[in-house]
């Protein structure tokens, strides 16, 4: 437990002391939110669009973008540790792979919580709305945090396989494409293009966004929340298992 606590402390300190990791990861989704809600507001006039506020509709995507930054940030941190030799320093202590995984994700968790709180605060200040009320906002932050952890675990896998922190950056466009091929910009039932709708239906990102969006627009939608949490937790479980195994192999000291 002490190992996890101290590694988590280091991970949080390391993240919080690097404004370059926090500011773009927090501001970029907000800028995109401002642009989208200003430019695409007329989409709310489409028959069947679930809300008359595109800002409220688009707010959910800001949380998902936070997840993308979690992949990059967590992956880069681990790749930096490997490249600098800090990973070897850790390996020379009686550290367990599980402690290292938990420790590395602590910074991601702290940043994710900060981002989620910022997005909801800014979103509400700009005229957005949380249909599920204050408890809904709390659940929204909780779901966003699980999503961030799930993406952060993917980042751990990327960080272990990358030969340098710069290589992890290469994942950014790939993950962004994955995000855009979802119900990010339009509800699935309003996507007219068949192939796009099919991809969006099979893309778990859609269900995570819809889970977040349900709290903002619909109120308490058990199915949307179950699918949102379910997808996020499933990705978290798989990614965490793969990351822990890879890390244990990577730490195959004699």
């Amino acid at each position, binding site marked *: 437990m*002490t*190992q996890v*606590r*101290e*590694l988590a*402390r*280091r991970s949080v*300190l*390391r993240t919080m*002391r*690097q404004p370059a990791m926090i500011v773009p990861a927090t501001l970029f989704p907000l800028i995109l939110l401002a642009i989208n809600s200003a430019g695409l507001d007329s989409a709310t006039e489409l028959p069947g669009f679930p809300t008359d506020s595109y800002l409220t509709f688009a707010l959910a995507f800001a949380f998902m973008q936070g997840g993308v930054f979690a992949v990059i940030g967590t992956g880069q941190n681990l790749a930096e540790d*490997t*490249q*600098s*030799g*800090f*990973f*070897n*320093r*850790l*390996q*020379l*202590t*009686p*550290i367990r792979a599980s402690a290292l995984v938990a420790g590395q994700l602590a910074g991601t968790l702290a940043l994710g919580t900060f981002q989620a709180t910022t997005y909801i605060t800014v979103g509400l200040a700009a005229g957005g709305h949380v249909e599920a009320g204050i408890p809904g906002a709390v659940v929204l932050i909780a779901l966003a945090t699980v999503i961030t952890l799930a993406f952060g675990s993917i980042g751990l896998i990327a960080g272990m396989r990358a030969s340098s922190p710069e290589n992890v950056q290469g994942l950014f466009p790939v993950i962004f494409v994955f995000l855009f091929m979802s119900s990010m910009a339009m509800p699935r039932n309003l996507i007219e293009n068949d192939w796009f709708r099919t991809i969006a239906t099979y893309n778990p990102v859609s269900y995570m966004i819809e889970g977040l969006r349900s709290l903002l627009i619909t109120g308490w939608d058990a199915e949307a929340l179950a699918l949102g949490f379910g997808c996020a937790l499933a990705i978290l479980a798989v990614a965490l298992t793969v990351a822990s195994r890879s890390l244990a192999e*990577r*730490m*195959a*000291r*004699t």
Partner: protein
Amino acid sequence: MKEGSASRAAGFAANGIEVQGLAREFKGGVRAVDGIDLRVSPGEIYGFLGPNGAGKSTTVLMLTTLLPSTAGSARVAGYDVATQGALVRDAIGAALQEAALDPQLTAWEHIRLQGALHGMSKAERTKRGEELIERVGLTEAAGRKVGGYSGGMKRRLDLALALLHGPRLLFLDEPTTGLDIQSRAALWDEVAHLSRDEGVTVFLTTQYLEEADQLADRIGIIDRGKIVAEGTPAKLKAEVGRPTVEVTPADPAERERTAEQLAGFGELVPGTPNGAAVRLADGAEELADIVRAFDNAGVRIANLELHAASLNDVFLAKTGRSLEGAQAEAAAEGDTGEHPVGAGASA
């Protein structure tokens, strides 16, 4: 007599290093370390000298359990590195190539993290940490982020961290590479103190002849994965014995004539690009004869230097290359064949 021998063996098991036929082959068949044997006695400073890519760091990675060997065996502090890795790691401290520190953390935060990972109590790591931070001269800077430290300060913190849990053996992989003369001297003093006053066994890799010569009780010279010579600096130099004379002619065009003149006094050896060098057949007393020979031949001398046998001569005698030449060769080849420290256990 038997008791003494048993006690020496116990001490050896506790603090020594024994290596037999240790080898590491990487993908593509590169044998970075090719069946080395060595023995480091308790409390000794063992200098592992060789050019870049010779196999020094790979050896350290294997002895510190970070990289499995592909052949041979090694016991560190009495434990088998292949099967008792956790016990080895508990007994050793290591400062590997490049001070691997987190630039966002302060020295105190490094001490806290490292101590906690080693299972030290808060009181224990605070006491030991304060003692070590003071000893390596970082008291004033300890509250600052390491990102702002100089190379020497980072190295000293690295050393303090390696010593935090009170290891019996210390591995230092090129600890002074890139440091200025003052920082290098300070680190040498500290390493000497550890061995002399605290009985810590030190395994030190270096590519600096002077470092190995001044600091090490015994030296192993490694080249292309094999140990080519081993012994005390004095013994190794005595083996090579004879001094060399290097002459640089005033007119660079007379380099060949310079070599011709010197050839009469012994075996020609590689010298500077503008001059020629000879290992004297009969010792330094021939110096006057050499000056006379050049005078008689009408070759004007710009510079004449007499070199007592050095570790470079030992390297030259054992490998046919100077250490500098071997470094240049390794640089030209680019890929040294050695495993990068940062990628420790992945290979």
